[in-house]
């Protein structure tokens, strides 16, 4: 899972059945300082998040299928929470690279 920022919405009429009536949001992963990293993903939203929100994203297929209740399901990234507060302790040098990278 990683923390991201919703930076936009995606609209598609023609899509696979697993995505029917799902809200698709564009999420940019945040580094540990809360800055955008440029590493993005198109995620399915199940918590009524909107553009600008800081969100928690799961990027794993099996978890996504369980949340959405579909199997098979061709979905990997799901927004599962809206983040209020982050506390990072004992970090001497905070990396500004994305910390959860997948293709």
């Amino acid at each position, binding site marked *: 899972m990683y*923390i991201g*920022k*919703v*930076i*936009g*919405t*995606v*609209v*598609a*009429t*023609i*899509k*696979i059945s*697993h*995505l029917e009536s799902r809200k*698709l949001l*564009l999420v*940019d992963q945040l580094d540990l*300082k*809360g800055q955008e990293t*440029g590493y*993005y*993903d*198109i*995620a399915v939203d199940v918590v009524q998040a909107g*553009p*600008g*929100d*800081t969100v928690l994203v799961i990027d794993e*297929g099996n978890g*996504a299928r369980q949340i959405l209740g579909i199997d*098979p*399901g*061709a*979905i*990997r*990234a799901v927004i599962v929470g809206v*983040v*209020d*507060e*982050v*506390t*990072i*302790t*004992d*970090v*001497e040098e*905070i990396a500004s690279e994305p910390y959860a990278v*997948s*293709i």
Partner: protein
Amino acid sequence: MKFGRVLGTVVASQKYEDLEGVKFLVVQPLDEDLKPNGQACIAADATAQAGPGELVFMVASREGAQALPEVFVPVDLAITGIVDEVDIERGTRREQPTAIWHHLNQDND
């Protein structure tokens, strides 16, 4: 899922039997500004309606195969939708943090 631009088509008459009827397209992965990012690759078209020039989104790895009618197939990238519209937030909600970030270190504990 990531954005991609369809560049062309691939035809293979001899292929794994469960891939019969599946269309393959050449796609260029894009970054969030829809600029080319990385090398072009081959994706199975799970919408069956994408064509060259179109902006699509695609899912990689194991989930790519799950987008197709036959799930246990050797596919690692599939087109799952054709994009109509992308709306990027550029206002203050994007610029300003919407969550509170605390950085504590040993000194102020």
